[in-house]
């Protein structure tokens, strides 16, 4: 089930693949993922740590260190061109300008020896060709926008004079400075207190509504995603294993892994004493990926076919979204009589 109107997607990713060459072997971090992102959409990318969700975002931005990294295949269409084929100079004009990124740890993501104001102004001077004083005016506006009190005074502060939550606000201000079409937020709340987390999430939702950009929200926390995003990509071992609108995924979970993720969410409704479901085992070694389904080893529904062949993402009409599992029909009780 799609949106109905044929909207032209903002970004279209085809077969994106990223590897790292390490001493121990080739790490297959992202394994040929494809999806589209609509203008104004908030997309949640969910998965355990090491599932490739951050790496795939960094690959879109081409911020992977090459070597040891490599993007051997794939296309990332954004604004009518393939980002992976741009020259480094053209790509710089995309970074921070059309696609901006907010990182996980606000403590270490700001340069300690420059003022916060300067670090925000930097992008403005680069992309918007502002001079220093214009950039300062705009940067103070942005600091106000993200809810930093006394923005004029704070402009000249160094990062160590900011609290963690304020730094993340400053990071968001920096990312939004050039009005990007896409904001990639890579676990932006993981390092923060729970109350601050909620503030940051609400801030991003508000700014998304005001500015109309698309947001890609990367997280390992399904609970956060449910409230704010439109669509979800569930990633596992560098694959997208389930993708669709939030409601469809919550109401008709198809992939055993997603079920596990949802099962490990504590719920207020449950009777006290109910055991949280955990997924046994560990994700597969990305150096030696199994030939069949990557989730095979931990799956309670596995059959011989799962061991032999890798399931591809297919449209599960009945559930209204896509999934990569051989047995989704049986699992949800669809179709097969």
């Amino acid at each position, binding site marked *: 089930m799609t949106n109905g109107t044929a909207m032209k997607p903002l970004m279209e990713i085809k077969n994106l693949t990223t590897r790292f060459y390490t001493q121990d072997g080739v790490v297959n971090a992202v394994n040929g993922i494809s999806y589209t992102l609509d203008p104004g959409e908030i997309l949640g990318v969910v998965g355990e740590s090491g599932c490739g969700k951050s790496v795939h975002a960094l690959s879109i931005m081409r911020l992977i260190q090459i070597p040891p990294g490599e993007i051997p295949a794939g296309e990332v269409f954004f604004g009518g061109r393939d980002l992976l084929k741009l020259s*480094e*100079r053209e790509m710089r004009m995309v*970074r921070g300008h059309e696609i901006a990124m907010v*990182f996980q740890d606000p403590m270490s*993501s700001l*340069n*300690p020896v420059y003022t916060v104001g300067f670090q925000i102004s930097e*992008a403005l001077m680069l992309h918007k060709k502002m001079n220093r004083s214009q950039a300062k005016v705009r940067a103070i506006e942005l600091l106000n926008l993200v809810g930093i009190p006394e923005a004029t005074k704070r402009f000249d502060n*160094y990062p160590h004079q900011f609290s963690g939550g304020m730094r993340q606000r400053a990071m968001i201000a920096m990312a939004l400075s050039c009005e990007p079409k896409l904001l990639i937020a890579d676990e932006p709340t993981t390092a923060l207190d729970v109350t601050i987390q909620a503030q940051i999430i609400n801030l991003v939702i508000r700014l998304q509504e005001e500015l109309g950009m698309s947001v890609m929200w990367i997280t390992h926390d399904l609970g956060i995603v449910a409230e704010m995003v439109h669509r979800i990509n569930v990633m596992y071992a560098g694959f997208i294993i389930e993708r669709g609108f939030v409601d469809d995924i919550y109401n008709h979970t198809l992939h055993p892994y997603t079920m596990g993720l949802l099962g490990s969410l504590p719920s207020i409704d449950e009777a006290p004493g109910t055991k949280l479901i955990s997924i046994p085992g560990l994700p597969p070694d990305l150096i030696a990926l199994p030939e069949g389904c990557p989730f095979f080893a931990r799956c309670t529904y596995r059959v011989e076919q799962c061991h032999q062949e890798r399931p591809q993402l297919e449209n599960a009409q009945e559930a209204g979204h896509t999934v990569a599992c051989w047995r989704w029909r049986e699992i949800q009780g669809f179709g097969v009589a």
Partner: protein
Amino acid sequence: MGRYILRRLLSVIPTLIGVTLVIFLFQRLIPGDPAVAMLGEHANAENVARIREQFGLDKPAFLDRDALAEGDLPGFFDSQYVRYFGRLLQFDLGESIHRRIPIAETLKERFPATVELSLLAMSIALVVGIPIGILSASRRNSFLDGATMIGSLVGVSVPIFWLGIMEIMFFAVIMKWLPSGSRLSSGIVIKPITNLLLLDSLLTGNWVGFKDAFLHILMPAISLATIPTAIITRMTRSSMLDVLQEDYIRTASAKGLSERIVLFRHALKNAFLPVITIIGIQAGTLLAGAVLTETIFSWPGIGKWVYDSILGRDYPIVQGVTLLIAIIFLVVNLLVDLSYALLDPRISYE
């Protein structure tokens, strides 16, 4: 920040006193009677008496408890060390045993030669070491990086006196391109202003003098610069590599800044902090290395002077020069710490 600077300044004082103590204690290391050791077995009684007087050898080392027992309070403090320290406070470093000239006087003559050599060597080390360090960090695992790593390891492993000898052998003895010693050829005169010959010849527009002085200083400066260059290169590289791993570097790239700006604006300022410390330490290496380099190249600075004095057992000179070098070293490291406060905004708020 003011408090940080003040605290750091005050912390030098006890260290400085400790330094004078160590240097004073040097003469207690001399086996046997120091006066005899300095003058040799066959010294005449008059000279021995003079040395005893100069060092106050008839007094106890630190405190005179016998004087105190007799109720003589000022006499209690009249000791070798207190006299030594009192003289130091008046900038009196004593006098040379054999030539009987005040050490401070000869020092004034000889120090500029060492300063010139050390400054040039440090400039070479900075101009070569820092850019190569940055470049090889930004091209990690490239051929250049490998060559830099090997080259710098060889650099710290070469005995500089041997390198100097090899240079003399090749450039002076075999090729006859460069002079093998001293600061100037005979017959060349440079009007003294600062006593730094390169600077003086430039100031007076004396091109012949400049060229001659430059040819003379080239080999000693290069061999003296070897170790600092290697160490500064390595430190710059590893510090840059550390900083390039930081999240804020990724943030800067994600803003769309070019590699050059990320490297020079965002990485370098952070990476430079540990490098400055190393530079401070290298100042000491240079001054100490001067003893070897100046000896080989017959460079008339304080290093050669120390060497000659060790051979001649003119211990007050060794003490005086060691003290001077230690003080310079302390001051340089103090400046390094203070520059930290300027470069790193986090320090002022500690």
